[in-house]
């Protein structure tokens, strides 16, 4: 006989997520993921200036900030056939890398670490042994016995005060915590260090985009004019600042994040066979090195993998009606021709229809509709998107840079490549792609410097900025790889205004409810067979859910009720 447990709110994520799970014999037998907040931004975008859309959709998410704005300017540029200058592409790429470095570190330490690191147990650590251990895994300078002893003293007094703040009611002492006290202390020390560090790397966004969170973007390029002889523009001081921040960021990734990730992972190898889930992976690709339109020269290659078979990578074509479709069989929506068939985003329609219980309630009726998320499918397949998908596709495409970081990690942990298909693999993949983006950020920076040195200071292509130059109707799509996975926006411009704007978002792929055939999406599938030692403490559920890094505000949206057809769309895949 199984027992239904509810975890709501799931904390240490962006937004509002609820999980209901049936436990039988200490394992999850069935699971349901529900998004419980909606804002209907697409409805609000109708009739507005397409050049302003980036600011609206940027506000979809302040955690993966910048990424929706980037996707939005790309989709408008696609519709208006604007090719941005190389420098603007480089600046966008540098901001993209900055976002990964920031977002992934904050995820690891502040959203995910407490699933693995027992804060209270860190008080039992020997600072001298902790120091020796820290120095054996990294050359990071803050590693003396005194440093760890100070932190331990500080946390001890904090705990003694009785007011535990954000650490209150945590699952401390849970049998699933396996780290030695010394590793817990390193994790705790770096939780605090990373909290101070994270505010630095985002200064790259402030320099190019004016602020972070929510830096500014511009249709046609970027607004940050290069002017090496003026104090107001991007000059030598601004560029040197960016260079320093990227260098410091890379150092933190290599000397703190990755050594910690590997140290923690080495004590949780059993999680390399838990939480695998679907085994299908989807990537749109990003970081163009020869212009956004040349998909064959992306740092993150596009593609799809099915059934964990890395010997075959499928190309993805977003314009084909049978490829991407969205279902609402178990969502709080109503399709005109019934909720049992899927619709391509071109023909997407939505009418919201809440059929859940009247709040306050204890349980959702998961046999019916149970989420504000729709359910996207690729050729009918449920797909996982995100860091693991990107790393697998890069690896499967035979890219040397991916192979190098993946093979090293597998060797260091002494696990086979199949270990990647798991909760631990997902968490590790996030770290591995951060190593790459930190390196690539500096590559893009060097190219920007070279361009400027060679006299190219163009930052925006403004010849089609005036709406008077636009065709009466225009259709476009923009795609990216958000930190949480494949992301695309579609726009339909009519009479200089937005007639339709649609988003298909990473967490919608991962966190959605079941489809018309009853197939689970990534979260639900990954939770199956996860052990739960204590039904009243959902620690193991948090591990797997957090390994996806949920972003719920992104995932909930509404299509144009009229479902305008879009006839032109970028081809993804090479």
């Amino acid at each position: 006989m199984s027992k239904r447990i509810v975890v709501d709110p799931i904390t240490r994520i962006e937004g509002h997520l609820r999980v209901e799970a049936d436990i039988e014999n200490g394992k999850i037998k069935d699971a349901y993921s529900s998004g419980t907040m909606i804002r209907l931004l697409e409805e609000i975008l109708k009739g507005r200036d397409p050049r302003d859309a980036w600011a609206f959709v940027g506000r979809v998410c302040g955690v993966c900030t910048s990424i929706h704005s980037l996707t939005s300017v790309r989709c408008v540029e696609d519709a208006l056939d604007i090719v941005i200058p190389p420098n603007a592409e480089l600046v966008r790429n540098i901001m993209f890398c900055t976002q990964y470095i920031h977002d992934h570190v904050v995820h690891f330490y502040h959203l995910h670490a407490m699933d693995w690191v027992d804060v209270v147990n860190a008080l039992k650590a020997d600072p001298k042994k902790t120091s020796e251990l820290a120095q054996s895994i990294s050359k990071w300078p803050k590693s003396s016995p005194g440093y760890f002893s100070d932190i331990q003293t500080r946390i001890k007094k904090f705990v003694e005060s009785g007011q535990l703040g954000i650490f209150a009611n945590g699952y401390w002492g849970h049998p699933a915590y396996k780290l030695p006290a010394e590793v817990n202390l390193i994790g705790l020390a770096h939780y605090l260090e990373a909290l101070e560090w994270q505010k630095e790397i985002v200064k790259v966004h402030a320099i190019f985009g004016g602020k972070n969170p929510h830096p500014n973007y511009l249709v046609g390029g970027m607004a940050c004019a290069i002017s090496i002889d003026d104090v107001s523009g991007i000059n030598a001081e601004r560029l040197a600042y960016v260079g320093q921040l990227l260098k410091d960021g890379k150092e933190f990734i290599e000397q703190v994040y990755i050594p910690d990730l590997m140290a923690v992972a080495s004590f949780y190898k059993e999680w390399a066979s838990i939480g695998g889930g679907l085994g299908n992976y989807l990537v749109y690709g990003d970081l163009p090195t020869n212009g956004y339109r040349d998909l064959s020269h992306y740092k993150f290659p596009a593609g799809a993998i099915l059934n964990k078979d890395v010997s075959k990578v499928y190309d993805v074509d977003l314009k084909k009606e049978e490829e991407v479709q969205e279902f609402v069989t178990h969502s709080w929506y109503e399709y005109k021709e019934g909720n049992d068939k899927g619709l391509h985003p071109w023909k997407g329609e939505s009418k919201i229809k809440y059929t859940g219980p009247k709040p306050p309630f204890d349980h959702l009726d998961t046999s019916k509709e149970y989420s504000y998320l729709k359910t996207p499918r690729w050729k009918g397949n449920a797909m996982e998107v995100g860091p693991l998908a990107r790393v697998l596709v890069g690896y499967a495409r035979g890219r040397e840079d991916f192979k190098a970081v993946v093979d090293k990690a597998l060797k260091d942990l002494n696990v086979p490549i199949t270990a990647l298909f798991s909760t631990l693999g997902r968490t590790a993949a996030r770290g591995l792609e951060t190593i790459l983006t930190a390196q690539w950020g500096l590559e893009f920076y060097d190219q920007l410097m070279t361009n400027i040195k060679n006299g190219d200071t163009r930052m925006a292509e403004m010849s089609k900025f005036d709406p008077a130059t636009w065709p009466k109707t225009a259709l476009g799509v923009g795609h990216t790889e958000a930190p949480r996975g494949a992301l695309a926006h579609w726009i339909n411009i009519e009479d200089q205004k937005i007639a339709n704007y649609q988003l298909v978002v990473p967490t919608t792929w991962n966190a959605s409810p079941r489809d018309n055939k009853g197939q689970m999406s990534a979260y639900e599938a990954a939770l199956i067979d996860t052990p739960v030692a204590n039904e009243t403490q959902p620690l193991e559920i948090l591990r797997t859910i957090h390994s996806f890094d949920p972003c719920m505000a992104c995932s909930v949206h509404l299509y144009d009720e009229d479902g305008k057809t879009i006839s032109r769309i970028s081809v993804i895949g090479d």
Partner: protein
Amino acid sequence: MINDASVLKQPTYYEEVERKGYSRRDFMKFVSMITAFMGLEKSAIGQVAKALETKPRIPVIWLHFQECTCCSESFIRSSHPIVADILLDKISLDYTETLMAASGTQAEEALKNTMTKYKGQYILCVEGSVPLAADGVYCMIGGKTSIQILEEAAEGAAAIIAWGSCASNGCVQSAKPNPTKATPIHKLVSGKPVIKVPGCPPIGEVMAGVIVHYLAFGKIPELDRLGRPKAFYSKRVHDSCYRRPFYDAGLFVETFDDENAKKGYCLYKVGCKGPSTYNACGVMKWNNGTSYPIQSGHPCIGCSEENYWDNGRMYERASAFPGFGIEANADTLGKIALGATAVAIAGHAIATNIGKHTTIHNLEEEGKESEHELNV
């Protein structure tokens, strides 16, 4: 407002800081920095220091409704190390879905504990708006609607801080047609002070400054008539803009990346909303003083102003230019400038080709009036 006697046993900020190994000098450095942030005279440094040394810690509940979490992200960007430490460790942040270790039942218990134990004493921070359409089902946490949760938490709060534009004015989800009926906090609670800290998001140090003001003095900061702390929202971005001399001289960027953009001219003609936006961006800047939108070459989009999403196209502003300066009271100008000028132009046929010289003169006068008002 705060019952000191009941919480006297809690350690003071200074004790906490000392315990963490910071020196008296570090502490005073922090005090003088935060005093400056609060817009106080240097003579107030002693007062702030004394307050931090003697006032007890205060529990904080931070709720998340219809939002994107940019406010929480901005808050953790707060620059001074001691500020980050104090706000994350010293205020006893007992509930925040973004950072707290506990989930589900344990998270709800933490919320309930603080609401019961510190009734009448905790600060309630709200990030996000509350959807009222469809009986509130567009935002539910733990099976309850956001309005139910807000009402329960507001009851025992000593004061409420409405973080960001979502909680202060509804922000993007309340833009027309506001399909979920997203509603800001001050319209939903009564009998409690509500401090609005608008911006999308607010500057991290402004958020820290508002909290520290409350902690230091045991009372909420002085608010303007819209409910915003005067310290951070009494000047227009335009008044403190380093590009203001170009505006006064009539030198403008005509299109992005043009020669004038490279020279750092004024961004008014490409849509800058600095003249109608009350915020501290020009003075404090963003991300520890690194830059701010205008410095990076992009116009201010006015993200701290009410209804900024419905104030016309972002990159078109020149048509409203001539009407500027017709309103003598600078405080009301910022609020009504866009609407008023549009009406003035359309309805009253104010000269659309008014001379640049006159306009600049008007603006200079207006600036002086604004300055005068601030000095009163």
